[in-house]
């Protein structure tokens, strides 16, 4: 549902059905609504059978990369005698994204059940839910729900009386964006500095504590119980873009929009309808100008491009951007794109883990140039330098943080070049304060 707004009839609330209903946090209520039925069933299935159902559902990772979940699970070699781990990525640090927060806030048991099923399916007895430290309320809710589930014997040494061990813990992050990157998350879980690791080895071979590990997003895991309850075909059929993108997807909408919030629609939904119907269009008297539709890491698009989008993994790519995490950031015609993009670049410069040269130096350099342009001290050569920097920062580093800094900026300059040129030509005095402000 369009939490905190009323559910829109065009929404398909699967994960968000109980958003806003605090009673669904309790185990008793959750069970009465069909909670833990899927886990009960799963614990008496072969793990490979669960993987097959998830494969059949076409579920793809909801954290941003969109990797097929069933395929990822099948990389875990069963019976290799090693300790397997499941990590749930609840770091949700991508700017503009707040869907996992609501899942954990309102339906903690949905996530616990998803984690337990996922852990069982990949042969893991231990699962960690890594929650970003700023999520104080979701952490409290999750911890309370875990305690309840543990006390009820749903997780533990003998999960739901099946004789199988599944332990789930919550781990708090310490406030670094980069800890949402899977290998940095594992380093952080291990108590080390949250630096991304070089791949290979991939987590399925050597992940947490050097053991085979699978890492999934909150939304991905929360969808798993529904898939087991209703079958893979049901999940597939829900989508308008079957078979490549399936199921429903939560979008967090923020920025200059009448009704910001979380919305759940099926794959293949029209973005135009989404923006104007569900989200209520622009604020009164304004017009939409630009969007960053998948969290701040993806390329910026114009509203014209956005209106043509079919909301699935492929549809966003067709218009030169990405579905990403589903964090839709909207700018209206009152916004200065140079200011907004400088602000985004500054975020990445601040959050770079400082390992790779291009990222450590490049993000900061790009930010300084953008801030200088905003201050009216830019030159046309600066724009060329930014394009070249972005080229140097893309595809050359351990993780994609530096790519993520370049993507929205370069696409933003390409599409809104006149705004940058106006600032450069105007040569405003440097005393004009940045509209974005420090």
């Amino acid at each position, binding site marked *: 549902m369009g939490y905190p707004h009323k559910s829109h009839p065009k929404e398909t609330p699967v994960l968000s059905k109980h958003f806003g209903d605090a009673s669904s946090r309790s185990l008793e209520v959750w069970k009465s609504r069909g909670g833990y039925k899927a886990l009960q069933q799963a614990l008496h299935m072969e793990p490979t059978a669960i993987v097959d159902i998830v494969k059949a559902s076409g579920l793809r990772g909801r954290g941003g990369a969109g990797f097929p979940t069933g395929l990822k699970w099948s990389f875990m070699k069963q019976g290799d005698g090693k300790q397997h781990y499941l990590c749930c990525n609840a770091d949700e640090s991508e700017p503009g994204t707040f869907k996992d927060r609501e899942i954990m806030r309102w339906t903690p048991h949905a996530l616990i059940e998803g984690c337990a099923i996922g852990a069982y399916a990949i042969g893991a007895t231990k699962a960690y839910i890594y929650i970003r430290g700023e999520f104080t309320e979701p952490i409290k809710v999750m911890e309370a729900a875990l305690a309840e589930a543990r006390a009820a014997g749903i997780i533990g040494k003998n999960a739901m009386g099946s004789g199988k061990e599944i332990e789930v813990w919550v781990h708090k992050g310490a406030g670094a964006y980069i800890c949402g990157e899977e290998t940095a998350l594992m380093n952080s879980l291990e108590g080390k500095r949250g630096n991304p690791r070089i791949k290979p080895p991939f987590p399925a071979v050597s992940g947490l504590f050097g053991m085979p590990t699978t890492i999934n997003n909150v939304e991905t895991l929360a969808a798993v119980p529904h898939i087991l309850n209703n079958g893979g075909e049901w999940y597939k059929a829900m989508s308008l873009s079957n078979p490549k993108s399936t199921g429903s997807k939560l979008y967090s909408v923020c920025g200059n929009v009448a009704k910001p919030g979380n919305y759940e629609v099926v794959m293949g939904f029209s973005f135009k309808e989404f923006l104007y119907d569900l989200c209520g269009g622009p604020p009164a008297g304004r017009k939409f100008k630009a969007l960053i539709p998948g969290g701040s890491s993806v390329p910026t698009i114009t509203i014209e491009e956005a209106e043509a989008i079919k909301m699935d993994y492929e549809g966003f790519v067709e218009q030169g951007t990405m579905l990403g995490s589903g964090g839709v950031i909207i700018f209206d015609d009152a916004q200065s794109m140079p200011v907004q993009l400088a602000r985004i670049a500054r975020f990445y*410069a*601040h959050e770079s883990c*400082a390992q790779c*040269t291009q990222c*450590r130096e490049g*993000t900061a350099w790009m930010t300084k140039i953008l801030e200088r342009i905003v201050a009216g001290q830019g030159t046309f050569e600066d724009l060329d330098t930014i394009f070249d920097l972005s080229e*140097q920062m893309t595809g*050359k580093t*351990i993780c994609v943080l530096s790519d993520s800094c370049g993507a929205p900026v370069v696409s933003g300059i390409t599409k809104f070049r006149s705004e940058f040129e106006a600032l450069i030509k105007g040569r405003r005095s440097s005393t004009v304060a940045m509209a974005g402000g420090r």
Partner: protein
Amino acid sequence: MMKDESRKMVNLTIEGRAVSVPEGTMILEAAKVAGVLVPHYCYHPGLPVAGVCRMCLVEVEKAPKLAPSCATAVGEGQVVHVYSEKALEARKGVLEMLLINHPLDCPICDQAGECELQDYTFQEGRADSRYQEPKRFNPVEDFGGDVLYVTNRCILCTRCVRFMEDVHEDAVLCVSERGDRAVISRAPDADLVQPWAANVIDLCPVGALVSKDFLNKARAWELDRTASVCTGCSQGCNSVLETRDNVIVRTKPRSNEAVNHFYLCDEGRLDYRWMNRPDRMEVPKVQLGGALSPVDWEIAYAAAAKAMKGKRAYVVASPGLSNEALFLLKRIMKATNGEGAFRCETGPEAPLPGVKDLSLRADRAPNVNGAELLGYKRRDTDPLAGLKEGDVLVLADDTLSGVDIAAAKKASAIIVIGTTLPVGLPTPVAVFPIANVAEEEGTFTNLRGRVQRYLQAKAAPGLARPSWYALADLATAVGAPSDDCSLPSAVFSKMAASEPAFAGLSYDLIGLRGATVVGAAAGAA
């Protein structure tokens, strides 16, 4: 080269050259085999791979992206281009970014001339910078020990962090902060005083970690470098003596997988000043009217031979003398039916945990093993215990400091071969000034039986002669066999011929990496 049968060989082409390397080798190492050095900063063969500087990016055909060659394993049939346009462009980008906040203070930087940032920028970098913003500034920090951290020059390759964590196993360094604010920091109140900590200075590819001992002392291009062996203990770490104007100004490790890998302990590293001592014996002297008078070498030899005639020579030799010198002293012992002893200073051991069999050893002298193999008796507390009434006491580079010298009165005469004159002893009949380790050629035998050569780094003062030279002539004068001992290599071959432990060895065989004596434990360093 022996092939390791347990590992499959992989064939690939690097810059058009076919190479075959064991499976699992990284492209960067394979390129070395092909004779191509891929520019790099964070990679170091002695440290775990970090893959962070992104300088070693190369183009691998059919790969979607450029590959960090330090962290990409070789694959069968791979075609690698190190100098392709794409790879060069990427490395140029890295170099430009490494320099945007770098102070470019090469004129006052100790690293200048031996700086990889300079070298690769000259080789592949841009001539100018597009950076117009103010540079980041951080103050210089004293890391304790011999290490100074010049923060602004740091490129955050993390070699120092990984050395302390994974090799020294005392993780006192870390990266603090994020983004371009990141710097190397110490754990609270942890000075870099660990016994091997100063190796971070050598590991640093730029001028960020510099030696306080060497600070502003010399420019790298003014230095002459000589292969040597550290005299600090019986480990026998391979070293380089760096001299300017006949003065040693710095000691650095010389890599040798079999002994010290890439490292040198702080004690060994900073223990070179004595080699520059100016108060040396410079001319041979003989006793004339109760006092020492300078004479010609031949006269001194004759005086020594006269004093030794019909007497037993009791030799107290320093375990800091070369195998060659000890061998020639042994000839003197043999010719006079005498005996030899040595003493060795000891101290606490200080192993480098991450490297097998590498330690600052308790025996603080380089040739204890050589002395023992040549039959000298170890007498740490009382080196004169074997001295008999009427013996001629031959002091070879041991001044008997700290020893109760009353026993020396038993000697009928004293002969001194050394760099300084002993204090408090009866006047010797003859003294022979010799070169110290930095001024001559020779070999030491380390505690694992590895015989290693050291070369001459500077000139000896006055008329001082290399120890093998002075002792060969002295041995002949007292009646030892007179054969060709005109070069240290010739002395060594005489030793190899007559001493079973050294059988089969020669200077050519030892080279600059050493070779082990007969009976040394296989596999030990």
